């Protein structure tokens, strides 16, 4: 295949995680032809959709680092982005709890880091205040970070991507880049039998960003996958927790320690563990870690019980520092020194979600440093999400059902998701029709029965709406088919 107007882009972004989509959205404000190539079947399929969903304040990061700077910037702007893009956001604050005297040194260190990084509002609170803020959590004192917030990382990434798509960005899923060459100033990216040509490549491939850089000729990076496992708890536990509660981080750990985080939907997350693994695609949950997670979480919140667990999930951190060093490296956000036109975003682990929009701006500035960017006159800055019926008043519900009776059909009993919301999810602007895509957009199958009630109904709706036969329904695209055929 040769280059033609269809497959020549100004910019190809590799990877549709939060960062890739934030870059896409930022650049979609300019007169540029942009494509996003994603090897999975949807956005946020990797680390972006598998984390604690916390909008960090920036006190954990090393003063002077890009991580610290972009995290603080990201935190400050996050609420606005969420309101523009109709993304759930809740400024809960966060507690770093001390359980014995030795933890106070760690808290002092965090306060000092926070001060240097420009984090606002950090304060030490005594055991009495901890009790008042979080009656079910123990501890002898804590650092309170009032600006820490929670969001939905999946909806956030979807929203960025949809807004980018509204502004002309093209998304290609199940498109894994396996070859990159360059001729006459134009990159050629090969994905299976398809080719994409582009003047710039934004390498936001997360765990595989080292590989994409190497394919393009920049061989100096190695990502060390570090797995974190989580549990999700039943919404009935939401009474136990108001804000993220973390232990004081231990030096050398690959993460921040097992913590408890309320979600914007009212569940609690337990996790993550931190375990360096060999494979970048091994999302297994493991018995030993599962047992340990629960044990540690119970130390933070004694009211927890095993029966509260409704699901586990795992994410993998894309770390630049290996197991020998431990701790955190820094984000790499720069044009490659050896391959001009390749912009590397490497080692984007936590707080990458928080920092994603500022990272997008940095990428914009890198491009703007090489050529003039012309702002799009008709840029659309806002995006509307799926209306969550369950959160409305009775009057609002009544009105919506009158306008559209499909709001009156509850498809997912546990989460109270209506057929209209499922339809909106199925008809999403990115064209994703996988079960996971529907699940993350509208929340069916995410409750305590895990699809026991609604899975069959969603299969029906996919057929009715999109003509997708049951045999074609996949969980996450590719070969993740749900069914093997028809009965005799």
């Amino acid at each position, binding site marked *: 295949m040769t280059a033609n107007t269809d497959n020549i882009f100004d910019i190809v972004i590799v990877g549709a995680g939060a960062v890739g989509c934030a870059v896409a959205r930022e650049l979609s404000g300019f007169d540029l032809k942009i494509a996003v190539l994603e090897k999975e079947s949807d956005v946020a399929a990797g680390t972006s959709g598998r984390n604690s969903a916390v909008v960090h304040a920036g006190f954990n990061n090393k003063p002077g680092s890009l991580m610290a700077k972009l995290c603080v910037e990201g935190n400050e702007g996050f609420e606005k982005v969420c309101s523009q893009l109709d993304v759930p956001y809740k400024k809960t604050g966060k507690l770093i709890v001390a359980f014995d005297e030795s933890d106070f040194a760690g808290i002092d260190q965090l306060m000092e880091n926070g001060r240097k990084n420009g984090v606002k509002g950090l304060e030490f609170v005594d055991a009495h205040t901890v009790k008042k803020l979080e009656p079910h959590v123990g501890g002898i004192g804590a650092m309170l970070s009032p600006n820490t917030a929670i969001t939905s990382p999946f909806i956030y990434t979807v929203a960025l991507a949809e807004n980018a798509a509204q502004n002309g960005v093209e998304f290609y899923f199940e498109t894994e880049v396996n070859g990159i060459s360059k001729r006459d100033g134009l990159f050629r990216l090969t994905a299976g039998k398809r080719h994409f040509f582009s003047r710039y490549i934004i390498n936001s491939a997360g765990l595989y960003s080292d590989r994409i850089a190497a394919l393009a000729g920049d061989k100096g990076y190695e990502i060390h996958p570090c797995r974190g496992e989580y549990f999700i708890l039943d919404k009935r536990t939401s009474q136990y927790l108001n804000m993220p509660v973390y232990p004081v981080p231990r030096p050398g750990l690959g993460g921040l320690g097992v913590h408890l985080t309320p979600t914007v939907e009212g569940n609690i997350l337990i996790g993550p563990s931190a375990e360096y693994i060999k494979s970048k695609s091994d999302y297994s*949950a493991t018995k030993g870690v599962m047992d340990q997670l629960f044990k540690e979480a119970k130390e933070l919140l004694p009211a927890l019980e095993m029966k509260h667990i409704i699901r586990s999930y795992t994410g993998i951190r894309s770390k630049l520092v290996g197991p020998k060093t431990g701790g955190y490296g820094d984000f790499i956000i720069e044009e490659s020194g050896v391959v001009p036109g390749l912009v590397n975003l490497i080692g984007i682990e936590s707080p990458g979600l928080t920092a994603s929009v500022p990272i997008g701006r940095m990428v914009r500035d890198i491009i703007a440093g090489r050529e003039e960017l012309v702002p799009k006159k008709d840029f659309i800055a806002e995006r509307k999400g799926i209306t969550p019926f369950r959160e409305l008043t009775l009057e609002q519900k009544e009105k919506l059902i009158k306008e559209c009776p499909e709001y009156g059909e509850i498809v997912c009993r546990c989460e109270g998701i209506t057929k209209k919301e499922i339809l909106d999810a199925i008809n999403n602007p990115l064209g994703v029709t996988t079960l996971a895509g529907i699940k993350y957009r509208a929340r069916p199958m995410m409750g305590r029965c895990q699809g026991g009630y609604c899975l069959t109904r969603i299969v029906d709706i996919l057929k009715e709406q999109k003509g997708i036969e049951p045999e074609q329904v996949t969980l996450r695209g590719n070969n993740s088919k749900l069914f093997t055929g028809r009965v005799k």
Partner: protein
Amino acid sequence: MLINKDLIIVGAGPAGLAAAVEARKRGIDDILVLEREPVAGGILNQCIHDGFGLIKFNEALTGPEYAKKYMDEADGMGIELITNVMVQDLSSDKAVTTVSPDGIRSYQAKAVILAMGCRERTRGAICIPGTRPAGVFTAGVAQNLVNIRNVMIGKNIIILGSGDIGLIMARRLTLEGADVLAVVEKLPYSSGLQRNITQCLDDFGIPLLLSHTVTNIEGRERVTAVTISRVDEKGNTIRGTSKKYDCDTLILSVGLIPENELSLNAGIEIDHVTGGPRVDEKLQTSVPGIFACGNVLQVHDLVDYVSAEGELAAGSAAEYIGGGLGSSTADGCSSVDVGINSEDKGPNGENPLSYEKMAVRAGRGIRYVLPQTIRPGKAVTFSMRVVKPDREKTVCFIAGDRIIKKRKYTALNPAEMIRMDLSQNELKDVSELEVCIYED
């Protein structure tokens, strides 16, 4: 607009239908049955195998046939049934809010019967390690997909849990051409009925691996293998016993959980062992005027008992609507011919609500007993389950130091619900009651 009803029944499965029919027979005219599915019948609609109704009708019916008997009867009585409607909220004063394509409706009932059934325990709840690919189904979902949607869910299948639905699905999938490699049970005994083990596994040569569990799931997109390991008496995996089975599907039949989200909204007290509301011998929950029956109350082995429970709940609801059982709303129900009065007063004729209900204790060898409380001096049908399988043992009701009833069983099995009737006479002058397994 508030719509008044004498009796609202939530759920038109076997419990709800039986309750509706019985309530009408007891003279309650103003009945509304709410059902979220497009048709009544509940889970029976997907149970196309036979064996239903052996006790109730003395014949082996399929699930839909059993349901149809009640549907026809309810229909013939002109009982109001609304389908495609979800009950969104239930309050302790028996206000019911529903959502349907017709809008939001608010009802005020004099009495409510909960008959919402149960849901299945999932993979997440039992924390099976491994990846999370396509190809893991709970048995009931699998049954729905195969029997109602007519899709095949896999070719090489492992079933975890020997609950009845899992056993039924082992046979069903085999008949559809799948290779069911094994049914795996963590306990040293099956949690399904013996007849199902014989008819669904033995007859098809499907191995039942007792004291084994699934310890890993593999596969990135679709299941490619599961690991099965032996467990000790405490349920811990025994090292060196793991065996990997190549397969594309894992079915879970690992327990049913009464669906009591609505009950919790209404402030109804839940029994942590049964997962259902705590009830008295009238199947009245901790909230006066709200009754529970069927799988929302306790998970049953046989549908025949579900129907019986529905009938009992309906009789009680009728009494309540007629002003009995501590009801304070004995107005406008004069047409209801339910003689209560003296019978429902306390032993000394006091106000029915003011006397103490007596707790029934599940003693040695008994996992739970229902009802959890009784009023003194009434005939009661108790249902209970034992902790573990046993042979040649006696189930005893003990009041203080006195055995008031006992029955010997050649075999006791946790999968089978035990039902025992105690007469008014047997329960006379009883002030404490425990049921236990007695060593002869």
